């Protein structure tokens, strides 16, 4: 039985429908990431689960109990927010202790638990400081410690790494899963960063415009996105989207006069006009012509950390963004290349609905 169930939650602000029949569930100990662009309703969803907002329709079920009439403080939920929200007049120690104090624990128990988690999060040396004397990284860890200290069954983390500098954010992305696993809580983690989502999640609930667009493992979402909208949200640089036509044999798709090989299974789409999705890393570039390649010229090259991004253009005006490991190749502006797309990586989308066309095995 799932330890957390969100069942057709609808939330409105006046006439604005911010959440529209949102449903998903999480198993005990799972880290479920709620991912979506800004304004998609992620924070509102978290607040509904916390009990801070009441939904117009639907229910939240935690550990098998319907939480509809249960106040936030009785839901056994720990929370941390992106603006840290630490009590300014409490020291870090007192901030972290606050959930335990509220539960009526003894002083010695509180002392022990606070010290234990502070050590884990490497902030025991700043416990006596007040929030204004803490760095962003220390504030973030204090907020996290406060969320976890009472070992709640459910932990809600609203973009906790957003206001933290790049280096620390990267470190926390590596450490957080290990840390969260130790507590065994079910974690709901909100982020706008797809890499963070893929790195931390057992499963991702993609929220777009108040609706769940896809709910699956990171791998499934990246390789088999349910729609163009979902495909565009994952990957950097963003996926290339081109309008093309599938040929009658359903083994090629043409964009202007350039052709790409289609994998098997798309005979239902023979002759149709579709949107094609090509991820930059799926493009293979060669210095010499090979079967199935098209002629391309380098327009710009941009380094992107461990990869290089190259904008290429065909003679017919087709533009594509491709990436390759930075340590390979030294391309220059104007260099000619022959490019092809790995057929299995090509994604086909219906024009009207934006839904991905599923290949059929026959």
């Amino acid at each position, binding site marked *: 039985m799932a330890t957390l169930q969100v069942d057709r939650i609808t939330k409105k602000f006046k006439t604005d429908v911010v959440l529209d029949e949102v449903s998903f569930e999480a198993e005990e100990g799972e880290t479920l990431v709620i991912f979506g662009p800004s304004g998609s309703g992620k924070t509102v969803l978290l607040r509904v689960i916390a009990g801070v907002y009441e939904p117009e329709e639907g229910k939240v079920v935690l550990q098998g109990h319907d939480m509809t009439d249960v106040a936030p403080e009785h839901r056994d939920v720990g929370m941390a927010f992106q603006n840290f929200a630490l009590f300014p007049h409490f020291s870090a120690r007192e901030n972290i202790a606050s959930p335990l104090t509220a539960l009526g624990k003894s002083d010695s128990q509180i002392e022990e638990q606070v010290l234990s988690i502070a050590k884990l999060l490497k902030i025991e040396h700043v416990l006596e400081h007040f929030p204004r004397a803490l760095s962003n990284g220390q504030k973030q860890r204090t907020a996290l410690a406060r969320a976890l200290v009472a070992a709640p069954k459910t932990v809600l983390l609203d973009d906790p790494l957003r206001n933290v500098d*790049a280096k620390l954010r*990267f470190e926390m992305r590596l450490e957080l899963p290990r840390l969260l696993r130790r507590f065994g809580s079910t974690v709901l983690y909100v982020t706008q960063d797809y890499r963070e989502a893929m790195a931390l999640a057992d499963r991702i609930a993609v929220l777009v415009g108040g609706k769940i667009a896809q709910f699956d493992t990171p791998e499934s979402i990246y390789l088999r996105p349910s729609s163009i909208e979902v495909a565009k949200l994952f990957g950097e640089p963003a996926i290339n989207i081109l309008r093309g036509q599938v040929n009658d044999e359903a083994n090629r798709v043409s964009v202007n006069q350039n052709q790409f090989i289609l994998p098997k299974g798309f005979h239902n789409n023979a002759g149709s006009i579709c949107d094609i999705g090509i991820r930059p890393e799926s493009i293979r570039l060669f210095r010499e012509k090979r079967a199935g390649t098209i002629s391309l010229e380098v327009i710009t090259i941009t380094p992107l950390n461990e990869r290089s991004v190259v904008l290429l253009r065909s003679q017919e005006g087709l533009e594509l963004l491709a990436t390759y490991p930075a340590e390979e190749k030294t391309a220059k502006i104007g260099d000619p290349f022959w490019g092809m797309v790995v057929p299995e990586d090509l994604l086909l989308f219906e024009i009207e609905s934006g839904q991905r066309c599923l290949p059929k095995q026959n």
Partner: protein
Amino acid sequence: MFVPEIQLSLNSVDKTYYGKKIEAAVRAVKNLSLQISKGEIVALLGSSGCGKTSTLRMIAGFEDVTGGTIQLSNRDIHQLPPAKRNVAMAFEGYSLYPPLTVRDNIAFALKAERISRSESDAKVMEMAKFLEIEEILDKYPSSISAGQQQRASLARALVRKADLYLLDEPMGQLEPQLRSVLRVRLKQYLQEHQMTTVLVTHDQTEANALADRIAVMEDGELQQFESPTQLKHRPANIYVGTFIGEPPMNTFAAEVKPIGKGFQFQLEEAGEILDYQNVDFPKSLRDQLIKHRRIVLGLRPHAVKLGKGALKAQVISNQWLGDQSHIAAEFANRIVVAVSHQREAFKLDENVPFHLEASDIHFFNAENGNAIAHGLEI
């Protein structure tokens, strides 16, 4: 492509903020000298408090220079008010005029240029398409999102003809996907129109993507001013080495000990030893390393080659991010991060062998952090 003619020159620029007491003075920019060519895109990069924003504000004229001079197109500008410098800017506090629509805000920047109404309209439209704000052209600043406001501000700065363009975290409010797309377009646009640009950012990914050269600053001082490639391959010191690049460079403090026909890097706090033969390194480099004795080894994530080798690390995380994997493992009492361009099957707690090429190692002096050599080249 830029003509090597100096457009902007900062000469020993200093900025001190004075408080009520003498001890409260803060020296935010220390003796900064930079020469920027016409058409060049330069990024001022560093963590908060490094002096990059103070520098930009001095170039704009919003702050006085405490010492030194600034020249633009061969004339002194450091004592001129902002409006007389012929500089276009997109700054956080420099927002759109509330009573004008977005369209009129952008067009206002063109009023000083004697061009026809239709030409002005066309330029505004071109800029709006490029920054994807056509839909909000007829809206007022108060009714658009922070991201849209930022793009409108950027449009207003770029649409003008100016000697210099100053951008302060130009895409800070935008979502990752949009940033990615606009970065490529912005770079293309600035290059095509040969616009000399100075931008401030704390995001090294952005600096790397946009800039011809990056000025890395820390604590008011210039650390290094070179192309992204140079900064990556030949960082001047540990600070630059670990600031540039994501995931960041792995570092190991070590002691160099000559042993027989080779030598060892004894990694501090770890008991791990890297053995090398004398022939692995050129003599001049060997001599330098032995002379310094206490050094720091720097290894970029892609240089940690997992799968085979004499060294062993224990996997603590294996994260697949679609186009690459980030694998973190414990080695020599610290976390080492490796990048692979495919999915890797390594499991948690698995002991994985790995190796390093001498040509991938960056060597730094442990005393002052300065670079000794990169790979086998001093």
